[in-house]
């Protein structure tokens, strides 16, 4: 979803580059890069890691899933703040936009920390042979 949404500002910015119309569209650049690279590609990779990495208790447990859910929530909250910053800037000025970026930055760092905390013990030899999709 983030990937699909993130392509829209990217397309608009490319259109602006080609035509010279609406230079204000460049304000969408942080939203485009964050939605595609963090919300799309990084989140997809994190999801696949959560899914396929070796589990505990003979496959019954993924360990501390609360940490993974916290990471998911914080990552998407950070994304939301970056995407909404032009709106916050328009409504409340530069201070609000900077506060949104600062909160997004803190949430992003914490999201990474909690995910690594969750996944680190799962990077180990599999208890059973890995399934090989083919």
């Amino acid at each position: 979803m983030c990937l699909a949404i993130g392509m829209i500002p990217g397309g608009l910015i490319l259109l602006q580059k080609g035509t010279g119309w609406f230079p204000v569209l460049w304000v969408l650049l942080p939203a485009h890069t964050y939605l595609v690279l963090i919300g799309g590609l990084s989140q997809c990779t994190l999801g696949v890691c959560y899914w396929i990495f070796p589990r505990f208790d003979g496959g019954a447990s993924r360990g501390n899933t609360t940490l993974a859910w916290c990471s998911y929530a914080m990552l998407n909250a950070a994304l939301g703040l970056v995407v909404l910053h032009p709106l916050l800037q328009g409504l409340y000025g530069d201070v609000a936009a900077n506060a949104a970026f600062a909160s997004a930055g803190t949430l992003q760092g914490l999201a990474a920390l909690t995910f690594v905390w969750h996944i680190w013990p799962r990077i180990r030899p599999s208890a059973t042979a890995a399934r090989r999709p083919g």
Partner: protein
Amino acid sequence: MPTLTRWFLKTAMLYFLCGFVLGGVLLITLGWKHQAIFGVLQPVYWHLLMVGWLMQCIFGVAYWMFPPFSKDQPQRSEALGWFTYGALNLGLLLRAVVEPWHSLSPQVGVGWLLVPSAVLQVAAVWVFVINTWGRIRGRRR
């Protein structure tokens, strides 16, 4: 999960952590973006994420999950796999240090350190592709 995959994935997770923290710091300091260090660290941030985190994570999972090359060599050449790991990380770390250093105080000698960084990263990816190519196929009957 093979040993090399574990090294790829644990290293990738460390880059993910460092990259996201650096990205967070850059977001927090966005209000002071006139500072030279901000522009200088942007390429480092994106490369830590794209090469150190995403590419390395994909390499590790591919090395582990792709169909076996043969019964004797399921991962084809383990030596080439380790070469990829070493070259990619050496090249990336060299870049992460030298690129901002060169941007802040351009010197010919320092700039030339980016050459081995580039060669190592390109070689790592080519060796990975060559070593993995034979494993991209349907299930053996």
